[in-house]
């Protein structure tokens, strides 16, 4: 069901269902704490955010919580029609043009006061760059990070899988490389989220579920 609520020239569009919002904020808090505990684990002796033992315990528990949380996200999208937001653009030329347009906006248009080329709708909440990034992040990188994390959590129990992966150092290196990627992501993501029509617009939307979109006829309807 699509809920619209007119507010002057902007209208509110229900884009973020409750399970997605719960998943998102648990994920956000979990990622920050996982990064902090991960930094403590890797850089013990250089930084002292918490004890090594606390960091390991925190990292393990949060890892478990986020794996369960991932399934909240996965099951929600698998069993609702909202999965359409993750459907890839099958026309590469179209996808490429859309991505380039979005890149041009972030790199040039935004400084010139040009409008965002992407218009949010219920089934198109991601711009082409986001769509590509989130597909890679959620379907590839996050599962790999969880998988390598589980292997490192109990190296003896999962020794066969670790061997298959190429050894514990290979598993750890993959985990750390992704950790580095997520550290970059954790800074870039909220900044991009602040580029709505107001700085806090997207943050509020992820709390209330409603995105404020320009009131243009024909927008916001299902594709």
């Amino acid at each position, binding site marked *: 069901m699509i809920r619209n609520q007119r507010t002057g020239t902007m209208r509110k569009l229900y884009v973020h269902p409750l399970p997605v919002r719960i998943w998102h904020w648990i994920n956000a808090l979990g990622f920050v704490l996982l990064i902090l505990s991960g930094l403590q684990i890797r850089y013990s002796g250089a930084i002292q955010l918490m004890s090594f033992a606390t960091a390991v315990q925190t990292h393990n528990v949060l890892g478990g919580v986020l794996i369960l949380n991932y399934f909240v996200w996965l099951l929600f999208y698998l069993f609702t029609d909202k999965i359409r937001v993750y459907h890839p653009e099958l026309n590469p030329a179209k996808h490429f043009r859309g991505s380039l347009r979005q890149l041009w906006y972030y790199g040039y248009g935004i400084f010139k006061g040009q409008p965002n080329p992407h218009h949010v709708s219920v089934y198109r909440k991601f711009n082409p760059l986001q769509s590509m990034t989130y597909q890679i992040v959620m379907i590839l990188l996050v599962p790999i990070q969880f998988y390598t994390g589980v292997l490192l959590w109990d190296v003896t129990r999962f020794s066969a899988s670790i061997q298959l992966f190429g050894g514990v*150092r290979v598993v*750890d290196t993959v985990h750390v490389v992704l950790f580095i990627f997520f*550290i970059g992501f954790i*800074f870039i993501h909220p*900044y991009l989220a602040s580029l709505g029509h107001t700085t806090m617009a997207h943050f509020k939307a992820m709390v209330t579920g409603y995105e404020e979109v320009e009131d243009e006829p024909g927008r916001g309807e299902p594709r």
Partner: protein
Amino acid sequence: MKTAICRIFTAAAVATALSLSAVLSEGARAAETSGPAPSAADETCLACHGQDGMSKTFPNDDSVSLHVDGRAFAASVHGPLGCSSCHAEIDLANHPGGGKPFASARVFSIAMARVCSQCHEDKAKLFEGSVHASALRAGNLAAPVCTDCHGEHAVVHKVPTANDVSCRKCHGAIFDAYLQSPHGKAYGKPGLMKAPICADCHRAHDVSPASTGTGLRDACLGCHTNAVEAHQKWLPNTKLHLQVVSCPACHAPTSQKRVDLRLYDPVTKRDVTAKDEQARLDVPAGASSGTVLDSKALWDLMRGVDRNGVPGRMTLVGRLDVRSGAEAHQLTDKSKAIRDCVVCHRKGADPFKNVTISIIGPDGRPIRYEAKQNVLHGPGSVEALSGFYAIGGTRIGLLDVLLALALLAGISAPVAHLVLRRLSRRRQSAEQRAAGKGE
């Protein structure tokens, strides 16, 4: 009168002294003759070998005593067997003088000790698999044989005291460290559990090299049965720690540590021996004892191992251990054991400053080659040391650089973008104001 009394007292005193002396010497004779007497056949041998000072001289001027204390032998566990049971090779017609010649007293003793296996086949079999037997086969004449621990003739059943343990003859420094440990201090004292001595952990006959296999860890856990559960309460990845960190590495807190990277065959699940790989191991087999392997040499080594064997088959398995046998015995009370994870899990931690690469030598002991610390931290270690990683302690430096770049990009890109947006907005506002004035 006075003189007469003195004479009587003197005579009485002398008589008493003589009687006492007679009683004491009788006692001494009785003591000398107590226990079983040698058999008639053995007395024949003892007619010569019972004489003090009888010895045999070898071509290298070594000499060995041929004197046998007949009573002690008769009282020993082998007494009922008689001399000929062990010395069956003696042909009285040619004795003395006949028999096989020996180069030295030690060669003679080693040869004579082989006779024990005739009856003690099981123990001999265990011994044959020991590091001592391997050393002997490798030509190390100092390696102990049966008689070095059990004696030659007066072999008796006894529980050794800490002072007469034969191991200390060769392993003196280790034994001294043991005596200062809780085990050494508790040995022989009454208690709920009997404190261990050498053979309890290292085994009496099938002594394996201390730094290979899981025998010693199993020995610790054999008595300290709740140790695994006790560690699981606070130590993450307990099983892994118990596999790759030797017990003394933490329980001998003052010991110097080292990381030993051992060539391992994951297919056969055993350490690679020099014998197996001699033809293929270019670097270790050719390296002198002073060779220090760096990252590149280690990379070449691992590639060399794979080149002529099954590609990708060999790997290096790391283990954190103490540097010497004496340090392995400097155990302390468990309250003083290392419990601080950061001792190892930080960059520059002491245990990772000493690195060796090893393969199992022909005598079962590891042959070690010194390696530079950087073998643990270089990017090449992802392949060469895929099976060994200690969080924090052996982290790859290149990934730290990548992290710094990610942090720099993650912070500076949004800040730069934000600043540019603000500046461009200000300019746009100024332009709009100027345009408004113009109109």
